[in-house]
Protein backbone atom coordinates (compact mmCIF):
# COMPACT_ATOMS: atom_id res chain seq x y z
CA UNK A 1 0.00 0.00 0.00
CA UNK A 2 1.18 3.53 -0.74
CA UNK A 3 0.57 6.38 1.70
CA UNK A 4 1.06 9.93 0.44
CA UNK A 5 3.15 11.98 2.81
CA UNK A 6 4.60 15.43 2.94
CA UNK A 7 7.23 16.87 5.20
CA UNK A 8 10.88 17.62 5.49
CA UNK A 9 10.53 21.37 5.19
CA UNK A 10 12.19 22.07 8.51
CA UNK A 11 14.94 19.57 7.72
CA UNK A 12 15.54 21.17 4.33
CA UNK A 13 15.78 24.64 5.82
CA UNK A 14 18.24 23.35 8.40
CA UNK A 15 20.50 22.05 5.60
CA UNK A 16 20.92 25.65 4.42
CA UNK A 17 22.34 26.67 7.79
CA UNK A 18 24.48 23.58 8.06
CA UNK A 19 26.00 23.92 4.60
CA UNK A 20 26.68 27.63 5.26
CA UNK A 21 28.67 26.68 8.35
CA UNK A 22 30.50 23.91 6.48
CA UNK A 23 31.32 26.32 3.70
CA UNK A 24 32.89 28.78 6.09
CA UNK A 25 35.12 26.09 7.60
CA UNK A 26 37.18 26.95 10.65
CA UNK A 27 36.06 30.44 11.72
CA UNK A 28 39.46 31.02 13.30
CA UNK A 29 40.85 31.31 9.75
CA UNK A 30 40.29 34.40 7.60
CA UNK A 31 37.43 34.16 5.10
CA UNK A 32 38.29 33.96 1.38
CA UNK A 33 37.28 37.00 -0.61
CA UNK A 34 35.80 36.71 -4.10
CA UNK A 35 38.65 38.86 -5.41
CA UNK A 36 41.17 36.45 -3.94
CA UNK A 37 39.49 33.57 -5.73
CA UNK A 38 39.24 35.40 -9.07
CA UNK A 39 42.91 36.43 -8.87
CA UNK A 40 44.52 33.39 -7.28
CA UNK A 41 42.29 30.60 -8.62
CA UNK A 42 42.13 31.95 -12.17
CA UNK A 43 42.22 28.58 -13.90
CA UNK A 44 39.38 27.20 -11.78
CA UNK A 45 37.38 30.35 -12.60
CA UNK A 46 38.13 29.85 -16.31
CA UNK A 47 36.75 26.33 -16.21
CA UNK A 48 33.60 27.52 -14.47
CA UNK A 49 33.13 30.29 -17.07
CA UNK A 50 33.49 27.79 -19.91
CA UNK A 51 31.12 25.20 -18.55
CA UNK A 52 28.77 27.86 -17.21
CA UNK A 53 28.98 29.42 -20.71
CA UNK A 54 29.20 32.94 -19.27
CA UNK A 55 32.27 35.15 -19.20
CA UNK A 56 32.33 36.94 -15.86
CA UNK A 57 35.38 36.39 -13.69
CA UNK A 58 33.96 37.70 -10.44
CA UNK A 59 30.73 35.71 -10.79
CA UNK A 60 32.74 32.57 -11.50
CA UNK A 61 34.72 33.29 -8.32
CA UNK A 62 31.54 33.86 -6.33
CA UNK A 63 30.13 30.61 -7.69
CA UNK A 64 33.23 28.73 -6.56
CA UNK A 65 33.07 30.34 -3.14
CA UNK A 66 29.38 29.58 -2.75
CA UNK A 67 29.77 25.88 -3.51
CA UNK A 68 33.07 25.24 -1.79
CA UNK A 69 35.01 24.84 -5.00
CA UNK A 70 32.69 22.31 -6.68
CA UNK A 71 33.27 23.20 -10.33
CA UNK A 72 30.18 21.54 -11.78
CA UNK A 73 27.90 23.08 -9.16
CA UNK A 74 29.57 26.44 -9.84
CA UNK A 75 28.89 26.12 -13.58
CA UNK A 76 25.26 25.36 -12.72
CA UNK A 77 25.05 28.58 -10.66
CA UNK A 78 26.36 30.60 -13.61
CA UNK A 79 23.91 28.95 -16.00
CA UNK A 80 21.02 29.65 -13.63
CA UNK A 81 22.04 33.30 -13.22
CA UNK A 82 22.39 33.72 -16.98
CA UNK A 83 18.75 32.83 -17.50
CA UNK A 84 17.72 35.89 -15.45
CA UNK A 85 19.53 38.31 -17.77
CA UNK A 86 18.22 39.86 -20.97
CA UNK A 87 20.44 39.32 -23.98
CA UNK A 88 21.34 42.51 -25.82
CA UNK A 89 22.50 40.70 -28.95
CA UNK A 90 25.46 38.90 -30.47
CA UNK A 91 28.98 40.24 -30.82
CA UNK A 92 30.89 40.39 -34.05
CA UNK A 93 33.05 37.25 -34.31
CA UNK A 94 36.15 37.80 -32.16
CA UNK A 95 39.33 38.06 -34.22
CA UNK A 96 41.95 35.82 -32.65
CA UNK A 97 44.55 36.98 -35.20
CA UNK A 98 44.44 40.33 -33.38
CA UNK A 99 44.93 38.74 -29.96
CA UNK A 100 47.25 40.51 -27.50
CA UNK A 101 49.38 37.37 -27.18
CA UNK A 102 50.67 36.16 -23.80
CA UNK A 103 51.39 32.60 -24.90
CA UNK A 104 51.72 31.09 -28.35
CA UNK A 105 53.35 27.80 -29.21
CA UNK A 106 53.35 25.46 -32.18
CA UNK A 107 54.39 21.82 -31.99
CA UNK A 108 54.37 21.61 -35.80
CA UNK A 109 56.54 24.57 -36.81
CA UNK A 110 59.66 25.72 -35.07
CA UNK A 111 60.24 28.93 -36.93
CA UNK A 112 57.15 31.06 -36.90
CA UNK A 113 56.80 34.74 -37.62
CA UNK A 114 56.56 36.15 -34.09
CA UNK A 115 58.25 33.12 -32.55
CA UNK A 116 57.36 30.58 -29.90
CA UNK A 117 56.23 32.35 -26.74
CA UNK A 118 55.96 30.05 -23.74
CA UNK A 119 54.13 32.54 -21.53
CA UNK A 120 52.73 31.63 -18.11
CA UNK A 121 52.62 27.82 -18.10
CA UNK A 122 53.12 24.83 -15.80
CA UNK A 123 54.49 22.78 -18.72
CA UNK A 124 58.11 23.26 -17.63
CA UNK A 125 57.67 22.78 -13.91
CA UNK A 126 58.72 19.47 -12.41
CA UNK A 127 55.45 18.81 -10.68
CA UNK A 128 57.30 18.95 -7.41
CA UNK A 129 55.65 20.64 -4.49
CA UNK A 130 56.71 24.17 -3.74
CA UNK A 131 56.49 23.98 0.02
CA UNK A 132 57.25 27.67 0.26
CA UNK A 133 53.60 28.19 -0.73
CA UNK A 134 52.55 26.47 2.52
CA UNK A 135 53.61 29.73 4.13
CA UNK A 136 52.74 33.01 2.45
CA UNK A 137 54.41 33.04 -0.93
CA UNK A 138 55.35 36.70 -1.02
CA UNK A 139 54.97 38.84 -4.15
CA UNK A 140 56.93 37.37 -7.03
CA UNK A 141 57.69 39.63 -9.95
CA UNK A 142 58.49 38.50 -13.46
CA UNK A 143 61.26 40.08 -15.51
CA UNK A 144 60.39 42.51 -18.28
CA UNK A 145 62.01 42.36 -21.71
CA UNK A 146 63.18 45.52 -23.36
CA UNK A 147 60.93 45.02 -26.36
CA UNK A 148 57.37 43.69 -26.56
CA UNK A 149 56.40 40.77 -28.81
CA UNK A 150 55.98 41.36 -32.54
CA UNK A 151 52.83 43.25 -33.37
CA UNK A 152 51.86 40.66 -36.01
CA UNK A 153 51.50 37.04 -34.84
CA UNK A 154 49.85 35.21 -37.74
CA UNK A 155 47.93 32.02 -36.92
CA UNK A 156 49.81 28.89 -38.00
CA UNK A 157 47.07 27.39 -40.21
CA UNK A 158 46.78 30.73 -42.02
CA UNK A 159 50.48 30.47 -42.89
CA UNK A 160 50.21 26.87 -44.16
CA UNK A 161 46.94 27.59 -45.89
CA UNK A 162 48.78 29.82 -48.32
CA UNK A 163 50.42 26.67 -49.77
CA UNK A 164 47.05 24.95 -50.28
CA UNK A 165 48.07 22.01 -48.09
CA UNK A 166 45.65 22.95 -45.35
CA UNK A 167 41.92 22.49 -45.32
CA UNK A 168 40.35 25.90 -45.86
CA UNK A 169 38.23 27.38 -43.09
CA UNK A 170 36.06 29.94 -44.79
CA UNK A 171 32.49 31.01 -44.16
CA UNK A 172 30.00 30.23 -46.90
CA UNK A 173 28.64 33.09 -48.99
CA UNK A 174 25.80 33.80 -46.54
CA UNK A 175 28.01 33.84 -43.43
CA UNK A 176 24.79 33.24 -41.56
CA UNK A 177 23.98 33.84 -37.91
CA UNK A 178 25.09 30.76 -36.00
CA UNK A 179 22.68 28.28 -34.46
CA UNK A 180 22.18 28.83 -30.74
CA UNK A 181 21.50 25.67 -28.75
CA UNK A 182 20.35 27.75 -25.78
CA UNK A 183 17.42 28.97 -27.92
CA UNK A 184 16.60 26.13 -30.29
CA UNK A 185 16.56 22.35 -29.89
CA UNK A 186 19.55 20.55 -31.38
CA UNK A 187 18.78 18.33 -34.37
CA UNK A 188 20.93 15.71 -36.04
CA UNK A 189 22.93 15.69 -38.19
CA UNK A 190 24.28 18.78 -36.48
CA UNK A 191 26.21 21.45 -38.33
CA UNK A 192 29.67 22.56 -37.29
CA UNK A 193 28.36 25.69 -35.51
CA UNK A 194 26.12 23.52 -33.31
CA UNK A 195 28.95 21.12 -32.57
CA UNK A 196 31.43 23.84 -31.70
CA UNK A 197 29.00 25.60 -29.36
CA UNK A 198 28.19 22.32 -27.59
CA UNK A 199 31.89 21.49 -27.23
CA UNK A 200 32.77 25.00 -26.01
CA UNK A 201 30.36 24.62 -23.08
CA UNK A 202 31.01 20.91 -22.65
CA UNK A 203 32.64 19.25 -19.66
CA UNK A 204 36.43 19.41 -19.77
CA UNK A 205 36.84 15.93 -18.30
CA UNK A 206 34.41 14.35 -20.77
CA UNK A 207 36.10 15.99 -23.77
CA UNK A 208 39.53 15.14 -22.42
CA UNK A 209 38.57 11.47 -22.16
CA UNK A 210 37.13 11.47 -25.68
CA UNK A 211 40.20 13.22 -27.09
CA UNK A 212 42.41 10.68 -25.35
CA UNK A 213 40.37 7.84 -26.84
CA UNK A 214 40.91 9.29 -30.32
CA UNK A 215 44.66 9.45 -29.77
CA UNK A 216 44.73 5.89 -28.47
CA UNK A 217 43.12 4.59 -31.63
CA UNK A 218 39.39 4.88 -31.05
CA UNK A 219 39.09 7.39 -33.84
CA UNK A 220 42.36 7.05 -35.66
CA UNK A 221 43.57 10.58 -36.23
CA UNK A 222 47.06 11.58 -35.34
CA UNK A 223 46.87 15.21 -34.33
CA UNK A 224 49.60 17.84 -34.21
CA UNK A 225 49.18 20.91 -32.06
CA UNK A 226 49.41 23.35 -34.97
CA UNK A 227 49.10 26.28 -32.64
CA UNK A 228 47.96 27.14 -29.15
CA UNK A 229 47.56 30.82 -28.34
CA UNK A 230 46.32 32.60 -25.25
CA UNK A 231 45.80 36.27 -24.58
CA UNK A 232 43.23 39.05 -24.78
CA UNK A 233 40.82 39.76 -27.61
CA UNK A 234 38.39 42.65 -27.73
CA UNK A 235 34.68 42.04 -28.08
CA UNK A 236 32.86 44.25 -30.57
CA UNK A 237 29.12 44.69 -30.60
CA UNK A 238 26.74 46.73 -32.75
CA UNK A 239 23.79 47.93 -30.68
CA UNK A 240 20.77 48.25 -32.98
CA UNK A 241 20.05 51.75 -31.63
CA UNK A 242 23.58 53.02 -32.30
CA UNK A 243 24.26 51.33 -35.61
CA UNK A 244 28.04 51.26 -35.30
CA UNK A 245 30.38 48.75 -33.68
CA UNK A 246 31.56 49.53 -30.19
CA UNK A 247 34.33 47.86 -28.26
CA UNK A 248 32.99 46.35 -25.02
CA UNK A 249 36.43 45.57 -23.58
CA UNK A 250 38.76 42.58 -23.54
CA UNK A 251 38.25 38.94 -22.66
CA UNK A 252 41.00 36.38 -22.12
CA UNK A 253 40.70 33.39 -24.43
CA UNK A 254 42.66 30.28 -25.40
CA UNK A 255 42.60 28.98 -28.96
CA UNK A 256 43.90 25.67 -30.27
CA UNK A 257 44.33 24.68 -33.90
CA UNK A 258 44.93 20.95 -34.32
CA UNK A 259 46.32 19.67 -37.61
CA UNK A 260 45.47 16.14 -38.71
CA UNK A 261 46.45 13.90 -41.59
CA UNK A 262 43.81 13.15 -44.14
CA UNK A 263 44.13 10.53 -46.87
CA UNK A 264 41.90 12.40 -49.25
CA UNK A 265 38.73 11.14 -50.86
CA UNK A 266 37.38 11.06 -54.38
CA UNK A 267 36.36 14.71 -53.98
CA UNK A 268 39.14 16.07 -51.82
CA UNK A 269 42.91 15.73 -52.49
CA UNK A 270 45.14 14.56 -49.62
CA UNK A 271 45.69 17.52 -47.31
CA UNK A 272 45.89 18.45 -43.67
CA UNK A 273 42.53 18.78 -41.96
CA UNK A 274 41.83 20.87 -38.92
CA UNK A 275 40.15 20.77 -35.56
CA UNK A 276 39.34 23.92 -33.64
CA UNK A 277 39.25 24.58 -29.92
CA UNK A 278 38.23 27.78 -28.17
CA UNK A 279 37.93 28.46 -24.46
CA UNK A 280 37.30 31.42 -22.17
CA UNK A 281 40.24 32.32 -19.94
CA UNK A 282 43.46 30.34 -19.91
CA UNK A 283 42.29 26.79 -20.49
CA UNK A 284 44.59 24.87 -22.81
CA UNK A 285 43.57 21.36 -21.89
CA UNK A 286 39.97 22.17 -22.74
CA UNK A 287 40.86 23.95 -25.98
CA UNK A 288 43.10 21.06 -27.11
CA UNK A 289 40.57 18.36 -26.23
CA UNK A 290 37.85 20.34 -27.98
CA UNK A 291 39.98 20.69 -31.12
CA UNK A 292 40.61 16.94 -31.28
CA UNK A 293 36.94 16.10 -30.78
CA UNK A 294 35.89 18.79 -33.30
CA UNK A 295 38.09 17.09 -35.87
CA UNK A 296 36.82 13.61 -35.06
CA UNK A 297 33.23 14.84 -35.43
CA UNK A 298 34.10 15.93 -38.96
CA UNK A 299 34.18 12.23 -39.94
CA UNK A 300 30.79 12.40 -41.65
CA UNK A 301 31.67 15.61 -43.56
CA UNK A 302 34.90 14.02 -44.81
CA UNK A 303 33.32 10.70 -45.73
CA UNK A 304 35.30 8.77 -43.10
CA UNK A 305 33.94 5.72 -41.29
CA UNK A 306 32.51 6.71 -37.91
CA UNK A 307 32.79 3.68 -35.64
CA UNK A 308 34.03 5.24 -32.44
CA UNK A 309 32.30 7.25 -29.71
CA UNK A 310 34.27 10.45 -30.42
CA UNK A 311 33.05 10.39 -34.03
CA UNK A 312 29.38 10.08 -33.18
CA UNK A 313 27.91 13.52 -32.80
CA UNK A 314 24.69 12.48 -31.15
CA UNK A 315 26.62 10.61 -28.47
CA UNK A 316 29.11 13.42 -27.95
CA UNK A 317 26.72 16.38 -28.08
CA UNK A 318 24.07 14.80 -25.87
CA UNK A 319 26.53 13.80 -23.16
CA UNK A 320 29.10 16.60 -23.07
CA UNK A 321 27.08 19.01 -20.93
CA UNK A 322 27.90 18.50 -17.26
CA UNK A 323 24.98 20.57 -15.98
CA UNK A 324 22.53 18.34 -17.84
CA UNK A 325 24.47 15.20 -16.96
CA UNK A 326 24.76 15.93 -13.26
CA UNK A 327 21.10 16.92 -13.16
CA UNK A 328 20.03 13.57 -14.52
CA UNK A 329 22.48 11.45 -12.56
CA UNK A 330 21.98 13.33 -9.30
CA UNK A 331 18.21 13.48 -9.51
CA UNK A 332 18.34 9.82 -8.51
CA UNK A 333 18.94 10.87 -4.91
CA UNK A 334 15.58 12.65 -4.77
CA UNK A 335 12.64 10.66 -3.39
CA UNK A 336 11.47 7.92 -5.77
CA UNK A 337 9.33 6.32 -3.06
CA UNK A 338 6.35 5.70 -5.33
CA UNK A 339 8.41 4.29 -8.22
CA UNK A 340 10.28 2.04 -5.87
CA UNK A 341 7.11 0.94 -4.08
CA UNK A 342 5.70 -0.02 -7.48
CA UNK A 343 8.75 -2.12 -8.32
CA UNK A 344 8.62 -3.73 -4.89
CA UNK A 345 4.95 -4.65 -5.28
CA UNK A 346 5.65 -6.10 -8.71
CA UNK A 347 8.53 -8.18 -7.41
CA UNK A 348 6.41 -9.50 -4.53
CA UNK A 349 3.60 -10.36 -6.92
CA UNK A 350 5.91 -12.28 -9.27
CA UNK A 351 7.43 -14.13 -6.33
CA UNK A 352 3.98 -15.01 -4.99
CA UNK A 353 2.84 -16.23 -8.42
CA UNK A 354 5.94 -18.36 -8.81
CA UNK A 355 5.47 -19.83 -5.33
CA UNK A 356 1.81 -20.60 -6.07
CA UNK A 357 2.78 -22.26 -9.36
CA UNK A 358 5.44 -24.34 -7.64
CA UNK A 359 2.88 -25.45 -5.04
CA UNK A 360 0.40 -26.44 -7.75
CA UNK A 361 3.07 -28.43 -9.58
CA UNK A 362 4.09 -30.12 -6.35
CA UNK A 363 0.47 -31.01 -5.58
CA UNK A 364 0.02 -32.38 -9.10
CA UNK A 365 3.02 -34.68 -8.84
Amino acid sequence: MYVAVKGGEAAILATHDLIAEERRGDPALPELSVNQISEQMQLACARVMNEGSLYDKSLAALALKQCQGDGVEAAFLLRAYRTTLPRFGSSLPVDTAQMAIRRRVSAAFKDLPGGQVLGPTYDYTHRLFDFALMAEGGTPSAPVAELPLDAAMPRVPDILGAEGLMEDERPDALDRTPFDLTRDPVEFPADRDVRLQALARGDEGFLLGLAYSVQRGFGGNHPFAGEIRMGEVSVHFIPEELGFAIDLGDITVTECQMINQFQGSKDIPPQFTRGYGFAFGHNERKAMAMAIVDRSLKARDLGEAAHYPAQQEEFVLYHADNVEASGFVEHLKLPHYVDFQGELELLRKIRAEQAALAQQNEAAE
Partner: protein
Amino acid sequence: MLDTPLTDMNSLRPRWMAVLARSTQDDLKHYFDQNGGLPDHHIMKAAETGTVMVEGRAGGTGQRFNTGEATVTRCVVRLGSHMGFSYALGRDKNHALYAAILDALLQDPAHHHAVMVAVIKPLQERQAQVRLERSRKAATTKVEFFTLVRGDG
Protein backbone atom coordinates in the same frame (compact mmCIF):
# COMPACT_ATOMS: atom_id res chain seq x y z
CA MET B 1 42.73 62.16 -30.77
CA LEU B 2 43.14 65.22 -28.56
CA ASP B 3 43.50 67.95 -31.10
CA THR B 4 41.24 66.58 -33.77
CA PRO B 5 38.73 69.05 -35.17
CA LEU B 6 35.27 68.57 -33.76
CA THR B 7 33.92 67.57 -37.16
CA ASP B 8 35.78 64.31 -36.71
CA MET B 9 34.18 63.61 -33.37
CA ASN B 10 31.94 60.93 -34.82
CA SER B 11 34.93 58.93 -35.95
CA LEU B 12 36.57 59.38 -32.53
CA ARG B 13 33.54 58.25 -30.62
CA PRO B 14 34.09 54.49 -30.91
CA ARG B 15 37.64 55.06 -29.66
CA TRP B 16 36.73 57.02 -26.55
CA MET B 17 33.91 54.56 -25.86
CA ALA B 18 36.48 51.72 -26.03
CA VAL B 19 38.70 53.57 -23.54
CA LEU B 20 35.73 54.14 -21.21
CA ALA B 21 34.69 50.47 -21.51
CA ARG B 22 38.10 49.43 -20.18
CA SER B 23 38.04 51.81 -17.22
CA THR B 24 36.84 51.21 -13.67
CA GLN B 25 34.17 53.04 -11.72
CA ASP B 26 36.83 54.74 -9.61
CA ASP B 27 38.72 55.95 -12.69
CA LEU B 28 35.62 57.84 -13.81
CA LYS B 29 34.27 58.92 -10.45
CA HIS B 30 37.47 60.84 -9.88
CA TYR B 31 36.59 63.25 -12.71
CA PHE B 32 33.15 64.04 -11.28
CA ASP B 33 34.60 64.48 -7.78
CA GLN B 34 36.97 67.08 -9.21
CA ASN B 35 34.23 68.86 -11.16
CA GLY B 36 31.41 69.43 -8.73
CA GLY B 37 29.68 66.03 -8.96
CA LEU B 38 27.55 64.57 -11.73
CA PRO B 39 26.19 67.13 -14.21
CA ASP B 40 22.40 67.38 -14.67
CA HIS B 41 21.29 64.46 -16.78
CA HIS B 42 18.15 62.68 -17.82
CA ILE B 43 18.17 58.87 -17.69
CA MET B 44 16.89 57.45 -20.98
CA LYS B 45 17.67 53.83 -20.12
CA ALA B 46 18.68 53.10 -16.56
CA ALA B 47 21.87 51.08 -16.17
CA GLU B 48 20.97 47.46 -16.88
CA THR B 49 23.01 44.26 -16.88
CA GLY B 50 22.44 41.69 -19.59
CA THR B 51 24.56 39.53 -21.84
CA VAL B 52 26.06 39.58 -25.29
CA MET B 53 26.59 36.27 -27.06
CA VAL B 54 30.25 36.17 -28.04
CA GLU B 55 30.76 34.77 -31.52
CA GLY B 56 33.88 33.08 -32.80
CA ARG B 57 34.85 31.53 -36.12
CA ALA B 58 35.80 27.89 -36.72
CA GLY B 59 39.55 27.83 -37.29
CA GLY B 60 39.60 31.57 -36.59
CA THR B 61 38.52 32.35 -40.15
CA GLY B 62 35.61 30.03 -40.96
CA GLN B 63 31.99 29.48 -40.05
CA ARG B 64 30.62 31.59 -37.19
CA PHE B 65 29.64 29.84 -33.94
CA ASN B 66 28.55 30.86 -30.45
CA THR B 67 31.36 30.52 -27.92
CA GLY B 68 29.29 31.51 -24.88
CA GLU B 69 27.89 34.72 -23.42
CA ALA B 70 29.54 37.54 -21.49
CA THR B 71 27.92 39.88 -18.98
CA VAL B 72 27.50 43.43 -20.28
CA THR B 73 26.08 46.52 -18.61
CA ARG B 74 24.63 49.42 -20.56
CA CYS B 75 23.20 52.83 -19.79
CA VAL B 76 21.81 55.71 -21.86
CA VAL B 77 21.52 59.30 -20.63
CA ARG B 78 20.64 62.62 -22.20
CA LEU B 79 22.56 65.79 -21.35
CA GLY B 80 21.01 68.77 -23.08
CA SER B 81 20.88 67.78 -26.72
CA HIS B 82 23.41 64.94 -26.47
CA MET B 83 22.63 61.27 -25.91
CA GLY B 84 25.38 59.46 -24.03
CA PHE B 85 25.67 55.69 -24.38
CA SER B 86 27.77 53.16 -22.55
CA TYR B 87 28.11 49.44 -23.16
CA ALA B 88 30.87 47.57 -21.34
CA LEU B 89 31.73 44.06 -20.18
CA GLY B 90 30.91 43.35 -16.55
CA ARG B 91 28.13 44.27 -14.14
CA ASP B 92 29.10 47.67 -12.72
CA LYS B 93 26.02 49.91 -12.99
CA ASN B 94 27.68 53.01 -11.53
CA HIS B 95 30.47 52.65 -14.04
CA ALA B 96 27.88 52.40 -16.82
CA LEU B 97 26.18 55.62 -15.66
CA TYR B 98 29.46 57.54 -15.39
CA ALA B 99 30.64 56.31 -18.79
CA ALA B 100 27.33 57.29 -20.43
CA ILE B 101 27.51 60.80 -18.94
CA LEU B 102 31.11 61.18 -20.12
CA ASP B 103 30.11 59.98 -23.61
CA ALA B 104 27.49 62.75 -23.72
CA LEU B 105 29.98 65.37 -22.45
CA LEU B 106 32.52 64.27 -25.05
CA GLN B 107 30.00 64.95 -27.82
CA ASP B 108 29.46 68.48 -26.50
CA PRO B 109 31.98 70.90 -28.03
CA ALA B 110 31.93 72.90 -24.77
CA HIS B 111 33.26 69.92 -22.77
CA HIS B 112 34.97 67.71 -25.34
CA HIS B 113 38.50 69.00 -24.92
CA ALA B 114 38.43 69.13 -21.12
CA VAL B 115 37.16 65.55 -20.79
CA MET B 116 39.63 64.30 -23.37
CA VAL B 117 42.50 65.83 -21.41
CA ALA B 118 41.30 64.93 -17.95
CA VAL B 119 39.86 61.46 -18.53
CA ILE B 120 40.36 59.82 -21.90
CA LYS B 121 43.99 60.61 -22.62
CA PRO B 122 45.40 59.48 -19.24
CA LEU B 123 43.27 56.32 -19.29
CA GLN B 124 44.28 55.54 -22.85
CA GLU B 125 47.95 55.91 -21.95
CA ARG B 126 47.59 53.74 -18.88
CA GLN B 127 45.73 51.03 -20.81
CA ALA B 128 48.42 51.04 -23.50
CA GLN B 129 51.04 50.81 -20.77
CA VAL B 130 49.42 47.76 -19.17
CA ARG B 131 49.20 46.06 -22.55
CA LEU B 132 52.82 46.87 -23.36
CA GLU B 133 54.04 45.60 -20.01
CA ARG B 134 52.19 42.32 -20.43
CA SER B 135 53.71 41.87 -23.87
CA ARG B 136 57.20 42.68 -22.58
CA LYS B 137 56.82 40.10 -19.82
CA ALA B 138 55.64 37.48 -22.32
CA ALA B 139 58.60 38.41 -24.53
CA THR B 140 61.02 37.14 -21.85
CA THR B 141 59.58 33.65 -22.49
CA LYS B 142 60.16 33.76 -26.24
CA VAL B 143 62.30 30.81 -27.35
CA GLU B 144 65.69 31.37 -29.04
CA PHE B 145 66.68 28.21 -30.95
CA PHE B 146 70.35 27.27 -31.36
CA THR B 147 71.42 24.88 -34.11
CA LEU B 148 73.30 21.91 -32.59
CA VAL B 149 73.80 19.60 -35.54
CA ARG B 150 72.87 20.31 -39.11
CA GLY B 151 71.64 17.18 -40.80
CA ASP B 152 73.08 17.76 -44.27
CA GLY B 153 74.12 14.11 -44.65
